[in-house]
Structures are given as structure tokens and as C-alpha cells.
């Protein structure tokens, strides 16, 4: 009883102190008063509020409050690192922000401008093409590797690890390694093969395929692991039964294994899809987005290998047009969000069917 009565006093005090210091911290920050303890004050405020809530003498809402208290750290981090930047970003895209100051509100000007840029439209098309090609090739290569690596050969673990290894190297490093391969190591070969006197990375159509090759090399090992897991879940009895019925390896693969891992295929397809959309690091380090394109929408372009993410980056950083870059980033977000929502819908349906 005494515990309860002390709580009755403690809880409101904690709540009030918490709310006051929380607001005070925010006010100090927004007014740019520059007191250095504002960060600590904010955290004390939040802790006060949480403790106050936790000690509230209520039976009815106690469970909800506990849920909230435990979820709070995650929600807070998510809010600070994702939600707030997202809202700020959308806000900036309607202004003429130059990375330093916001001058004027310009409405949809940046969006209109983005769609008037042939180079941006080209990047969208190129990215779409890249995504489709990659979705097919990465899955194909990864599935074949998985078939190889799920056999009962000796030392298969070594091969699995080797195929997976490129995925552990950062994309920038990988891009430079392959740049060396294409413009130094393989130079003699490709010069003869394509009758050029320079690296294939400087010929737009070849450079695009170079990016695809590097991307498959980087990503197939990872998808392979998922396929291996899928293949291992195919029940042994089913395989045995089909063997007794006289199925050869070919029909086992097409009639048994592939239908049994349909859900894995869906997951992998969407994984490769969203990841290929976000292609940036290899693109930056391998070709920098350069490449000459003749005759696109009645003009020529110089960003022949520039994917969407890199286009956004170079708009903001290299061309010093932060607001336009931000508008493009919002469009990019919308595209990715649509793809992800479709993905979730489709995978949910599949699960029901199974």
C-alpha cells in the first residue's frame, strides 16, 4: 500500500519534470541558445517521462505502457534517423535549397525540372533495364551455383564460402578491383576482341555489361545461400519417391525441386529487384556514370552508364543542385516504396497458398 501511495506522488512529479525538461531542451535547440547541456537535458526529460509512465498506478493501461516503454528506444532511433530526415527531405524538395540555405519555396518546380531532364529520364530507363537483366541473370546464376553447391561433393563448403566472399567486399573496393581488371589486366584481350584502342569501360554499351557482370559476381553468392537453404528444405521422402518412380535428374529438378522452392524464388526475385534498383557504389567506382550516348530524345548525353542513385548523387554533389537532387530522391523513394509494397503483397499471397 505504501508503495502505491508513494507512486501516486512520484509518478506525476517525474512526468512533469520529464515533460518540462524535454520541452526546454527542444526550445534551447530551436532558439539556438547554444547551451551544451541541451542533449543531456533531452535525455533526462525522456527518461523522466518513461519512468513516470512506468510508475503510474494504473492496472488498466499498465501493459500498454510497458509495451511503449520497451518499444521506445527503437521507435526513437527510427524516428530520428529515418522519419525526420524523410520529412525534411520532402520539405527541401519544394524549395531552392543549395545545401547551405533555404531561399524560397518553389512548389513543384524541381519535380517538373527533373522530368524535363533527358539525362534523368535516361537514368530511369537504364535503371529499369539494369533491374530486369539483373533479376533474371542473378537468379539464374545463383540457382545454378546453389545446385552445384548442394551436391554431396567433398569440399563443397569451400566453394560456398568462395562464391559468397565477393559479397563481403565493399562495392567501392570491388568497383576499383574490376576497373583494374577491365582497363589493365583484360585490356589486351578486349582490344583485340572488340577492335578498340581503349578500355571497354569507355564504350557505353560494353560498360553497361561490365557493371552487370560485376554486380552478378558480387551478388550471386548471397542469393545462392538462400537457394541452398531452400533446396535443403525439399523433403527427402519426396525425392526418394520420385527416384523410385524413375524420375531422372532433369525431371526431378523441374517437377519436384523448383515447384517446392517457389516461395524462395519469390523472395530472391524481390531481393534482387530492390537491390538492383539501389545500385550505387559499383556504378560510382567502375564508370562514374560516364558514357557517351548519341540520339536520346533528339540530343546526345554524357551520362551513358549513370543509374538512378548515382544520378541523384551527382545532381546534388557534383552539380551543386541540392534541391533538385532531393526532388529526384523523393521520386526514387516513391518508386522503391511501390516495388516493396508489391513485394510484400505477393509474398503474403504465396504464403497463404502454401
Amino acid at each position, binding site marked *: 500500500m505504501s508503495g502505491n501511495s508513494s507512486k501516486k506522488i512520484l509518478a506525476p512529479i517525474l512526468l512533469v519534470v520529464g515533460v518540462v525538461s524535454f520541452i526546454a531542451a527542444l526550445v534551447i535547440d530551436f532558439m539556438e541558445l547554444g547551451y551544451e547541456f541541451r542533449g543531456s537535458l533531452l535525455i533526462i526529460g525522456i527518461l523522466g517521462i518513461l519512468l513516470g509512465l512506468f510508475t503510474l498506478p494504473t492496472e488498466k493501461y499498465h501493459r500498454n505502457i510497458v509495451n511503449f516503454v520497451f518499444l521506445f528506444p527503437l521507435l526513437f532511433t527510427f524516428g530520428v534517423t529515418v522519419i525526420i530526415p524523410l520529412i525534411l527531405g520532402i520539405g527541401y524538395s519544394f524549395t531552392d535549397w543549395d545545401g547551405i540555405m533555404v531561399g524560397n519555396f518553389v512548389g513543384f518546380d524541381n519535380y517538373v525540372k527533373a522530368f524535363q531532364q533527358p539525362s534523368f529520364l535516361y537514368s530511369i530507363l537504364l535503371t529499369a533495364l539494369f533491374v530486369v537483366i539483373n533479376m533474371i541473370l542473378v537468379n539464374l546464376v545463383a540457382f545454378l551455383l546453389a545446385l552445384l553447391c548442394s551436391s554431396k561433393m567433398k569440399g563443397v563448403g569451400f566453394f560456398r564460402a568462395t562464391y559468397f566472399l565477393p559479397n563481403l567486399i565493399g562495392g567501392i573496393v570491388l568497383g576499383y578491383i574490376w576497373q583494374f581488371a577491365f582497363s589493365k589486366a583484360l585490356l589486351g584481350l578486349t582490344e583485340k576482341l572488340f577492335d578498340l584502342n581503349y578500355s571497354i569501360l569507355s564504350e557505353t554499351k560494353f560498360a553497361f555489361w561490365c557493371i552487370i557482370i560485376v554486380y552478378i559476381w558480387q551478388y550471386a553468392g548471397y542469393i545462392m545461400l538462400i537457394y541452398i537453404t531452400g533446396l535443403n528444405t525439399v523433403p527427402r521422402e519426396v525425392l526418394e519417391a520420385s527416384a523410385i518412380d524413375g524420375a531422372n535428374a532433369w525431371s526431378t529438378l523441374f517437377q519436384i525441386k523448383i515447384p517446392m522452392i517457389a516461395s524462395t524464388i519469390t523472395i530472391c526475385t524481390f531481393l534482387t529487384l530492390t537491390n538492383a534498383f539501389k545500385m550505387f557504389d559499383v556504378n560510382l567506382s567502375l564508370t562514374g556514370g*560516364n558514357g557517351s550516348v548519341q540520339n536520346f530524345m533528339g540530343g546526345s548525353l554524357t551520362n551513358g552508364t549513370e543509374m538512378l542513385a548515382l544520378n541523384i548523387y551527382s545532381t546534388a554533389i557534383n552539380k551543386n543542385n541540392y534541391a533538385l537532387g532531393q526532388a529526384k530522391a523523393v521520386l526514387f523513394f516513391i518508386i522503391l516504396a511501390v516495388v516493396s509494397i508489391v513485394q510484400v503483397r505477393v509474398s503474403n499471397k504465396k504464403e497463404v497458398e502454401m
Partner: protein
Amino acid sequence: MKKQIAVVLALTTAATMLLAGCGGSKDSSSSSSSSSSSSSEAIQLLNGKPEIDAQMQELAKAYEEETGKAVEVLTIGGNETASSKLKELYQAGEMPDIFVLEANQFENWSGKLVDMSDQQWTEDTDVEYVNEEGTLGFPYMVEACGLAYNADILEKAGVDPTTLTSPEAYKEAFAVLDSKKDELGLKAVVGYNVNATDVGWSSGTHVFGQYLDAGLATDDTTYIDLLNDGGQLDSDRFTAFGEFIGLLNQYTDSDLITGSYDDQVLGFASGKYAFVTQGSWIGATLTGDDKDAYEAAGSFEVGFAPYAFEDGINTILNEPTSFWGCYKDGNVEDAEAFLQWCSEDTAQKMFVENMGFVSPYTDCAYTSDDPFAKPVTEWLAEGKHSTYHTFLKKDGLQDATSVIFQNYAKGQYSSAAEFTEAMQETITSYYANN
């Protein structure tokens, strides 16, 4: 149970307080830049040249020893640009007191920079950055950009570099050198790097800058004004320039169409090219990273020849390529004192002797052992210099133009006229769309 929860809560609190403490201490170190109240705190300088980071740290140490005031040097990484780093620091509220700026970036920071026209050092130099807001940029070096040559090779081949002031003279000289390639040990007459991906700044900014300024007085803004008026090129001048670039393409090392900057400089250092399309900044590499090759090639003398694409062009670009600006809301007093010190004897000695810079200050008594110091000083003394209006072109234009330079080298255009046409189209659409 309750006790346990209490313990956990207490521990979490302690942990968060600890974290908050860390955050707090970081805060206090960064706020030194934004508050001008205390003069005992270190001033911060953002250095845009990663290659001189160590020397800049020494400079800061020397200043601290002499005056007792600390200077903290922040240096950008090799892969970032100073301007984006600066915006990052600005957003984070951690602006340095002094930072590097290229000529076209002063406008971005309009109203946030200190007018330093009352400073002593302005009287000792005539290349400081001045605009309608006052004297905003402190020059700390002069960089020269022309067609750098290997004087020993030219002498052996019997080519007098002082005669290279017309396209005809170049044609003859290149032909002579080309015919004697084997005996001179040359791989190619010219090392002209047009790799748009990694060295796009070279063709897109520096070589292109020759079109804008070669042969003109430093205050002549004809061609940059034309360019910034919707991206126009003067077709006569640019076609002549294109012819000259065609000549470079004809005699260049084809490996450099997609080669790296390192290959190009190493090739020149090893005496494999008679000419190279880089400026005085490669001097530090000749005596640094490529020292062995340069010594093996006989530590040859170097010089600059003008990009004489029209008869009588006889200047090289020879001015500061970047400046230091002072942040208005920073520690202005200390920053200005530091810059004044930088223009004086002790610092000038370090700039020239340790960093290999050519000093923009007339009273500087030191000469560097950098191979390019002598030709740069000579060109300056003779007054045959033009400036870098190329830094006033639209941001990022070099990314587009460098691809056209590369296409030309790849043989995509059959004549200078076609090259001019393609360049004009690209630049116009760049100005229209960005």
C-alpha cells in the same frame, strides 16, 4: 522482480547518461568553431589538398609554438570535394573558421565570409580573391597550367620551346619529336590524359580552361561571360582550339584514353613523354612518389609552353586555383591573425620549401626545389599569365565536357568542326537542364 526491474532501469539510465556525456563532450569541442567568445580555443582550418596534410599539420604546430595559439587542420579525404564536406560541416553546426574555396564557390557563401581588405597581407599580393563584397579569399599558392615539357628531351631533339607560340610551330615540333621517338626513348610525344571517369577534371576543367583564357589578360572575361550566358562557345576560337586538341590526339599515347592520372605522371617522370597536359602540381609527385623514375630519367629540367592554338598565344594559366576564406560567425580575430602569419616569413618558408608551392607574395624570399618552381616564377615575372576563369563555369560542367574530349580522342569526330559542334550541343543542353 521489482528490484530487478529497478536495477535494470538504473543501469540503463547510467548507460544513457554516459552516452549523453560523450555527446556533450563532442558538442563542446565543436562549438569552439561557432562561438567567437573565447580566444584561447583552437581555430579550425579545412584543407582541400590531401597531399599536403602532413605539411599543414607541421605548419599548425609551428604557429602554436610561435604564438601559443592552436590551429586544428581538417583535411578532406581523397574522394570527397571540399565544397560538399563544407556543406556537411555547416549542416552539423561545425563550421571551421578558415576553409578552402574555389572561385565559383564564393557566391554560395555570400554574406557568410569576412571582408579582409583591411589586412596587412593584401598589400603584398595581387592575386587575392576580390568581389563586390570585398576581399574574401586569401591566396596561399599559385599553380600554373600550360603544356608542361621535358626540357632535356626538347633540347636533344633540337626544338626550342620559346618558339612554340603558333599551331604551325607545334606541328613542326611534334613531327620532329615523333620522328626521333626511338632515339629519345619516347613512348609518345604527348601524354594527354582524357579518361573521363577518373581524370575528367583535367580535360574538363584545365584543358578546357585554356580555351577560356589562353593568351588573354587576367581581367579579360570575354569567353567565360559568353559561356555563362546559356553555354555559348565562340565557334572560331573553339574550332582553333579543337584543331590543337586534334593535334594532341594525334601524338598522344593511346593508353591514356582510359589511363589513370598516375600512369600519366609516371610516364612523364620517366621521360616517356616530351609534353604532358598537367600543371605545376605534378612537381610534388616527380620529387615524391615518382622520385625513383624521375631520378632514373636524369632529373630533367621542366618548363611550360603555352597552348598556342591561335598564332601569338603566349601565356599560361598562372594564378591561385583555390583560396582560404574566413567564416563570419567563427573566430574571426584569431583566424585573421593566423592568415597574416601565413603570409609572413616563417610560414612562407614552410609553404615554399615543404609544400613546394609558388608563393603569391611578392616579398617571399624563398625558392622551392620543386622542378616547376623555376618556370612558374619566370612566367610570373615576365607577366605572361592568364587566370583560371574555368573555375567560374557552371558546377559539374567538366563531367559532361570531359566525355566529349574523350570521344574526340577515341576518334568519334572526324574534324575539329564536328568536335566543336558536339561540344556546343553538350554545353548548351547542360546549361539548359541544370
